[in-house]
């Protein structure tokens, strides 16, 4: 919980997190050498959320704030997941429209569109 005199933490905590962020970033960069696929995507997202989590929780001290502030900041961005889901569902329709009505030439790499193959 936060105290009246601000956030007081030992310096070693920051050095640890700093080092960890370097390691996680290196892992994130290493995924670029992997073949495309589910494993690579999973690793990209895991490294991304781990890194973001350490920055927000420790460097931005959110872990040490009161729940009233933590929830006010973390709940609203949750609706973004909904937006991303809706936009992704809509995208194959837009993609088809481009081809059917605008006669766009489809690159073979774009077939099948992710999410349309079952």
């Amino acid at each position: 919980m936060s105290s009246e005199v601000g956030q007081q933490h030992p310096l070693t905590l920051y050095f640890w997190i700093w080092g960890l962020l370097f390691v996680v970033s290196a892992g994130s960069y290493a995924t670029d050498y992997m073949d495309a696929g589910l494993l690579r995507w999973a690793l990209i997202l895991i490294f991304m959320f781990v890194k973001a989590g350490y920055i927000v929780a420790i460097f931005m001290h959110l872990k040490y704030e009161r729940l009233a502030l933590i929830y006010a900041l973390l709940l609203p961005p949750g609706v973004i997941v909904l937006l991303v889901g809706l936009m992704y569902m809509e995208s194959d329709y837009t993609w088809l429209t481009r081809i059917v009505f605008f006669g766009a030439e489809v690159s073979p790499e774009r077939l099948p569109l992710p999410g349309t193959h079952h």
Partner: protein
Amino acid sequence: MAQAAQAETEVTGLATIAKDWSSDVTTFKGVPWGKAMMWIFLLSDTFIFSIFLTAYMTVRTTTAEAWPNASEVFSLTMFGVPVPLLLIAIMTFDLITSSGTMALAVNYGYRRDKRRAVRFMYLTAFFGAVFVGMQAFEWTKLISEGVRPFENPWGAPQFGSCFFMITGFHGLHVSAGVAYLIIIARRISKGRYDNTNFEIVEITGLYWHFVDLVWVFIFAFFYLW
């Protein structure tokens, strides 16, 4: 006062949220108003960047043409060997380094060690300026290769508009952050915050860490996808 302290101990966990929000006084207890305002601003900024990245996803999944391969587009040739995303990786590590120096500045601020806090803030600003410099180099390279907001030599024309919009808006944040850090560091050395707990360093730090945070998502979605 004693009554308030007693009431404080009665609720724990999730119930404290309801209690803080319904207390009819300051909601974010123990949080300086400037810090709360910075958090609220960063929350709104989160939505801006999320909308950019969502729009990018929508565009990318609807193009009939293939999306340019970021791994190849952003590779640099070192000693005759193309290294994928080399500059982007260096930019990432530069930004983490600046986040670390910022965290140290905040810590020294709360210890009332003004001299060290100011020094680390200037160091953070320096790493930020280096980042902007590398980004300028990256933009120059891509523009000279023919990338425009409406066309590029490798595939879907929307690549350029997404790239310039997202990295440009982020670069603008970094540039503003560098100016912000320098202004606040100068004010601290002049003694403007001597009567405070130096929470101003933490507030500035929140903005700076947010810039690093946004880069984490841009790196994953724009450069690694």
